[in-house]
């Protein structure tokens, strides 16, 4: 299997630092699309601003590199106007959940058929290492030199509460699982959220003394566990991986199609 056919090699080398988790996520994503056999012309990738958002430039789909935090709003316009297209929205944690938090919960509430990938590296990488909403209390960053007092939240729980009908979490260490989860998320009809813990050794890792990329990934291995595992009962600090929700619920574009039907029947009668 070659995933090269999905890459715009003209635009390489990419801008990511050595050891950045984003390349792994991109690899997993392309493998997922390849596994699903999706036609390149039917994929639209929409991203916001940040290191992770540069993904869209490097792949050979219809790609839209937009504004910080707004990717899901742009994607909603694309999807509603052409519901047959597959919308994939890779985002950073600050992009998706700070400036983009409102768009995130409302895309989930509508259950519009978009796959949102939150690449959670707990930091603003592109602007040089400021704390993000997911950095967590006690972490260090350039804007929290004395320790972060901002509480983080659980993306997966937020997505579920807001109405996303598919919610999963994995990491850049669990590459096979990553592809599998993304395949399911992309095939799912409705708003799907996949949180991927993805290391930023350059800023988060270094500042918080987590070692190099390899040791950060080892941290994902030892610090996470499959959903409902015994290990979690014994150690509540472990972060759960896997699919939290996978349910059928009315999808926005399909519901709008029904509204159009109704309106046209009413018009025909009149």
């Amino acid at each position: 299997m070659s995933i090269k056919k999905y890459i715009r090699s003209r635009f390489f080398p990419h801008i990511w630092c050595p050891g950045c988790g984003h390349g792994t996520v991109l690899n997993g994503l392309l493998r997922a699309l390849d596994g699903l056999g999706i036609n390149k012309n039917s994929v639209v990738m929409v991203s916001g601003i940040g290191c992770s958002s540069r993904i869209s430039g490097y792949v050979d789909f219809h790609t839209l590199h937009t504004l910080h935090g707004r990717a899901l709003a742009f994607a909603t316009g694309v999807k509603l106007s052409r519901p047959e297209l597959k919308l994939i929205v890779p985002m950073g944690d600050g992009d998706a959940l700070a400036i983009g938090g409102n768009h995130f919960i409302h895309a989930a509430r509508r259950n519009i058929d978009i796959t949102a990938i939150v690449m959670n590296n707990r930091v603003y990488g592109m602007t040089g290492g400021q704390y993000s909403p997911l950095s967590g209390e006690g972490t260090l960053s350039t804007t929290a030199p004395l320790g972060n007092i901002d509480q983080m939240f659980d993306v997966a729980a937020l997505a579920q509460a807001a109405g996303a009908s598919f919610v999963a979490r994995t990491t850049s260490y669990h590459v096979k699982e990553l592809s599998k989860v993304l395949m399911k998320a992309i095939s799912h009809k409705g708003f799907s959220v996949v949180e991927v813990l993805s290391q930023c050794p350059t800023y988060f890792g270094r500042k918080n003394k987590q070692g190099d990329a390899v040791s950060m990934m080892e941290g994902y291995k030892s610090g996470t566990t499959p959903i409902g595992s015994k290990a979690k009962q014994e150690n509540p600090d472990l972060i759960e991986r896997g699919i939290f929700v996978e349910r059928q619920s009315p999808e926005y574009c399909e519901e709008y199609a029904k509204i159009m039907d109704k309106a046209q029947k009413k018009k025909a009668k009149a």
Partner: protein
Amino acid sequence: MSSTVKFVQGNEACVEGALYAGLEFFAGYPITPSTEIAEHLAARLPRQGGKFIQMEDEIASMCAIIGASLTGCKVMTATSGPGFSLKQEALGYAVMAEIPCVVVSVMRGGPSTGLPTHVSQGDVNQARWGTHGDHAIICMTASNNQDVFATTVEAFNLAETYRTPVILLFDEVVGHMREKLEMPEPGAVPLVGRLRTSVKDGVNYHPYLPREDGRLPMSDFGGVHRYNVTGLFHDMWGFPTDNPTVVRELLRHLVDKIDNNAAQICKYKEFHLEDAECVLISYGSSARSALHLVEERRALGDKLGLLELQTLWPFPEAVVREKCSRAKHVVVVEMNMGQVMAQVKLAVDKPGRVYLVNRYDGVFITPNDIMNILRLIQGKGV
């Protein structure tokens, strides 16, 4: 078949114009005094297979129409003052990425939430400079329902011709005033459609390859050409670049495609200008008060004339200079602190002869208000 006559609000005339022009996608967020545009489209669009969505905020609405435009749809959003402020970031994106779209602001008093239900013409400068960076923009306005309709159709035509956002500024009085609208038959007004690339599947398509005639053919998202769109400075592939030559040329292209065509873009109306010693310049609902006064004073022998601007940006400098060249006085009538007056002063040969007659208290400017100040300007005392 004859044209249909309707009795509608200005906001509805805008809806009729948009549908006539082929609107297929609308995203919006409720805000007074523009809300009727969204309400009518929510009912009308699904009937003809178009899409309506009420987004979570103004920002999202602007972003959504850009996304929809890229799939090949004619798109619009509508808002008012503070909502227009929120749209500015994505409006700049549409300028940079050259996305055809129409943005309506039915003006209310500001700054901030200001006067939601009162009239103002305070968004003139926001339309021009609300987004950051050097750029060009097209902004049009109208003073009556028939013109609201025609201007809205024209806005879609210009958006498609120049691949740019076009702003429609109506004021609250125009938006809410009910009067007659004569709907032209389908086909009676020429429409400009999306210029799509003729490049075949398998052949390299450059989304931003500059062309001599100024029109850049597009390819719909979901079609056979896969390309990148970004708000960053970009090369002919749509890929981000900071190469100074590419940056300079792109910015020049964005500005020139509008500025070099100002003569075709700019629309205006003139009333009794042939021998006018005093030229009134106005737009939107205040132009109706100005016209009333002009007609009234003409009957009494006063050499008054009116230049009604229908395009505010690019500012019709050449027209203003020419029409004011023989005037003793030039009087700008507007409902703000002189946003258009500042432009008129820049355009005319004798800026010292330019006066402002205005209100900025949320109260509609009447012919009487204008007359009172005019007497002072003309040295006749009150």
